[in-house]
């Protein structure tokens, strides 16, 4: 019996996608047209960084190599994110379909699902789906009878490291090394796994690819905004009545989302996980979209009675633990921000120290090697900015 962990939410578009329709449509298209179709759809990476998927595929397709890879990034470690768990549980076939379409588009013959260790319970389920697809001719030699298109998928396990969600750290981990991010360029699309051209896409991105190929780019673009096409899955947790996984078109306001999940009255919402920004109630009319608040979909609702500094402290403890330690700004900067928050909580943070730590946070944003250190100051800085009065009053002993 597979382990099922139920998660509530609203109706998901993925429920309505006809199985294998996307794969069949893709295989009936030339590789160049397929990449163009994904480019035209405006699909941007759903893991959080938002890089245009078609462009990524185009770069990889243009490389000449004997071996290329498609990696599905299922190292869902951003705090407050669990939509990939739901997709892998309920729509694993769509994800594998997306990987197969990607393999066809870029000319790869092997796909790898990099699954975080915390989701080990999902591994038998994924292997089972893969096995069934092989038996049905949807993976393996001459996929769907298309001569010369061989594509198979394996599952590889993570081992407990948030930073391995960063694509070059993920590749290092797959190669058997410490999950320390590489310098870029070269980007993985040029020199990735074992130095071969490699596409790394998020679970949701790949499922969306299958949906786009099944229903068309115009259909996909009918959701969302001009600059953020399509719909998005949001992982909603924290102080609300109905936490769960929700699908909304890009462009929904924070207030609208909170109404759907029973989170009205929140004092703030942390969007994008620990590496995201803390949005105070006065900004709840802002939109979730690449042009306003971009996000991988983590929405943590912070109720009126919470201490905002506890929130900052929790995130910074996380980053101190998860920094890989390779580059100096991240290794040393995170503990300094944590120290500042602890002092603020005690009402004992010297203004000069806080000023220096804020400057250091700015340095981290530009000088850290990977996204971890570049984004870990976001919550800290947005909390200082958004909740200056609350923090100041406390420092004054009010």
């Amino acid at each position, binding site marked *: 019996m597979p*382990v099922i*962990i139920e*998660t*509530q939410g609203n109706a998901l578009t993925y429920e309505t996608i006809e199985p294998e329709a996307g794969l069949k449509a893709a295989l009936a298209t030339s590789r160049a047209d397929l990449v163009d179709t994904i480019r035209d759809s405006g699909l941007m990476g759903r893991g959080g960084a938002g890089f245009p998927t078609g462009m990524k595929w185009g770069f990889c397709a243009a490389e000449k190599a004997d071996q290329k890879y498609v990696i599905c990034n299922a190292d*869902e*470690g*951003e*705090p*407050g*994110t*669990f939509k*990939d*768990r739901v997709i892998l549980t309920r729509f694993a076939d769509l994800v594998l379909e997306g990987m197969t379409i990607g393999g066809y588009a870029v000319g790869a013959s092997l796909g790898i699902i990099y699954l*975080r*260790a*915390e*989701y*080990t*319970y999902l591994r038998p389920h994924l292997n089972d789906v893969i096995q069934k697809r092989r038996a049905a001719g949807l993976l393996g030699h001459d996929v769907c009878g298309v001569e010369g298109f061989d594509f198979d998928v394996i599952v*590889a*396990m*993570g*081992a*407990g*490291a*948030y930073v391995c969600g960063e694509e070059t750290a993920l590749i290092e*981990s*797959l*190669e*058997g*090394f*410490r*999950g*320390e991010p590489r310098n870029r360029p070269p980007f993985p699309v040029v020199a990735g796994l074992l130095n071969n051209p490699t596409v790394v896409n998020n679970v949701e991105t790949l499922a969306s690819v299958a949906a786009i190929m099944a229903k068309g780019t115009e259909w996909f673009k009918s959701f969302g905004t001009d600059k953020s096409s399509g719909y998005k899955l949001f*992982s*909603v*947790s*924290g*102080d609300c009545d109905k*936490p*769960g*996984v929700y699908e909304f078109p890009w462009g929904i306001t924070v207030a609208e989302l909170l109404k759907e999940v029973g989170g009205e009255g929140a004092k703030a919402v*942390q969007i994008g996980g*620990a590496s995201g920004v803390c949005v105070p109630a006065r900004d709840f009319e802002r939109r979730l979209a690449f042009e306003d608040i971009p996000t991988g979909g983590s929405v*943590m609702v912070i*109720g009126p009675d*919470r201490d905002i500094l*506890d*929130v900052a402290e*929790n*995130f910074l*403890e*996380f980053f101190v*633990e*998860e920094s*890989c330690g390779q580059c100096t700004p991240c290794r040393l900067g995170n503990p300094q921000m944590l120290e500042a928050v602890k002092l603020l909580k005690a009402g004992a943070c010297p203004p000069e120290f806080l000023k220096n730590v804020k400057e250091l946070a700015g340095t981290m944003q530009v000088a850290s090697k990977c996204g971890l250190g570049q984004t870990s100051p976001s919550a800290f800085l947005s909390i200082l900015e958004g909740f200056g009065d609350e923090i100041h009053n406390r420092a004054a002993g009010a």
Partner: protein
Amino acid sequence: MATTMTNDELRADIEALVERLGPGRASLIPILADVKRRFHEIDSETMQTIADVLDIHPVEVHSVASFYAFLHSAPEGQFVIRLCGTLPCDFAGKQAVADALRTELGIGFDETTEDGLFTLEWTSCMGMCDQGPALLVNDEVHTRVTPEKAKAVVAACRAAAVAKEA
């Protein structure tokens, strides 16, 4: 425990793993995960043997094992209980669960019980944020954990250990 095996047995065991997983460096993490799951520690002799079989320096093996939270080499209990420490689980009441686990097991976090059954650790976000507090017992996920439920989970592990001995 790996240490109860002879050198030859250990080597044969690692060679069998490499046979199954492949001879390349990419097998290192799956090998370490397998050793950890079966022996609950990765001792220096095992690291040396893995290094020999993969033809890499033992320091490389140690460097990888020490990087990943789920692979670190120190001896752990048969049951590693990891409680999620991240914000949504914090909001949902992780502290009461932490207190219950400490009391029930008689150890603090990052400690192992004297009988070698349990290790208690904090872990980063496990992706169960809609149904916290969440904990992992080895690979098994438990959600909406209350102090009472935590005690029941520990009791079930103890019963499973007794059944295994019998």
